């Protein structure tokens, strides 16, 4: 395949991945890497590098829209970014020391988890859960635009959330994904932050987390311009389209659609890894 054929194909695949990723709040990277490795046979390290760069584009592009809507919480994001960036550094260092077959298997497991998480939905965040005293001191409790004016929320279990975020950062650095699914779990499930605030704040944090491993990826040669270019442009185009439709989108249908797509890819990644390709 020549570059004139390869590049538009990669662009198209990335655009679809970005669109799905933005709609579900799980990020485009989670689909783009398996798509590139499974469909086009790209080495997983090139795919991871391109995906990580695109994750920054997705996050920054979509976050610009979310910030204006008033959903994301900049203080929650910044505080938890200490955990995610340190985790990302660790993950990026581990990435180059891990055999590609193992990377593929871990990727598949994370994908399966994303699919499961996506289909399960959230069991209704506890509105006005008891605030964590530390969260109150850090001014993390906030409000977001609800159907009948601003709705208040409190943040609980800050330490658990912080620990989960370190793990999310490490997975992000290891696999070159935004690991939005894990970030949303930490905020929505553990810290009882309302779902919309969790997903948009997660999207906001993803770019900073990814930037923390990007420098290491660059120095290891994972960021190949010939692949990163169409992936970044494609994911960005797709995610901007998807982000425009997020607010007011029917969450349940989306979750199921995405879950099925991701589960299929997950199984293929694990099979590929086990075969040691």
């Amino acid at each position, binding site marked *: 395949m020549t570059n004139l054929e390869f590049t538009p194909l990669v662009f198209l695949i990335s655009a679809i991945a970005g669109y799905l990723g933005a709609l579900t709040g799980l990020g485009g990277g989670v689909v783009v890497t398996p798509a590139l490795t499974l469909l086009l*046979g790209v080495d997983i390290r090139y795919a991871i590098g391109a995906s990580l760069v695109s994750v920054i584009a997705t996050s920054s*592009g979509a*976050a610009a829209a979310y910030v204006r809507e008033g959903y994301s919480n900049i203080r929650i994001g910044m505080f938890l970014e200490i955990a995610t960036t340190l985790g990302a*550094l660790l993950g*990026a260092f581990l990435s180059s020391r891990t055999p590609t077959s193992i990377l593929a298997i871990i990727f598949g497991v994370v994908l399966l988890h994303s699919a499961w998480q996506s289909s399960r939905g959230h069991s209704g965040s506890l509105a006005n859960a008891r605030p964590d005293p530390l969260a109150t001191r850090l001014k993390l409790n906030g409000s977001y635009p609800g159907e009948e004016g601003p709705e208040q929320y409190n943040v609980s279990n800050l330490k658990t959330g912080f620990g989960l975020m370190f793990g999310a950062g490490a997975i992000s650095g290891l696999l070159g994904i935004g690991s939005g699914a894990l970030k949303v779990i930490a905020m929505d499930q553990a810290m009882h932050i309302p779902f919309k605030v969790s997903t948009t704040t997660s999207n906001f944090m993803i770019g*900073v987390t990814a930037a923390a491993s990007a420098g290491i990826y660059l120095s*290891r040669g994972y960021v190949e*311009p010939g692949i990163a270019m169409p992936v970044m442009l494609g994911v960005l185009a797709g995610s901007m389209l998807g982000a425009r439709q997020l607010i007011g989108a029917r969450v349940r249908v989306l979750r199921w659609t995405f879950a099925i797509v991701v589960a299929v890819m997950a199984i293929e990644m694990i099979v590929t890894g086990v075969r040691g390709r």
Partner: protein
Amino acid sequence: MNTWNDERLERIISIVLRTGVMLSAAIVFLAGICYMVRHGNEVANYHVFQGAPNKYRSVRAILHAMGPSDCRATIQFGLLLLIATPIARVAFSLVGFALERDRTYVVITSIVLAVLLYSVGFEH
């Protein structure tokens, strides 16, 4: 009177993010066309990992390689700009929190910024 608040900070951050991404995408797109014109008929072989050439692996090397003769270095420059966008976002937040005189968040933001700068300055 304190004219600085989270809302204003968030508005500025959203402008920073959007500008960074759009500028980076424009550069990557134009450099990508240049790359396609010059290398379009070459075979795309990414099945085996060799790693990007050394001249595309660090901020210094990319800035050095950039120019009309090397479109791929310009793609990398566009990507560097993209990587710099969230870092700029954190830097702007730091200034914002300082203006709000929020010491706790100045410290928190500084830690995040330090981790990011360490990574980007990292040379293997």
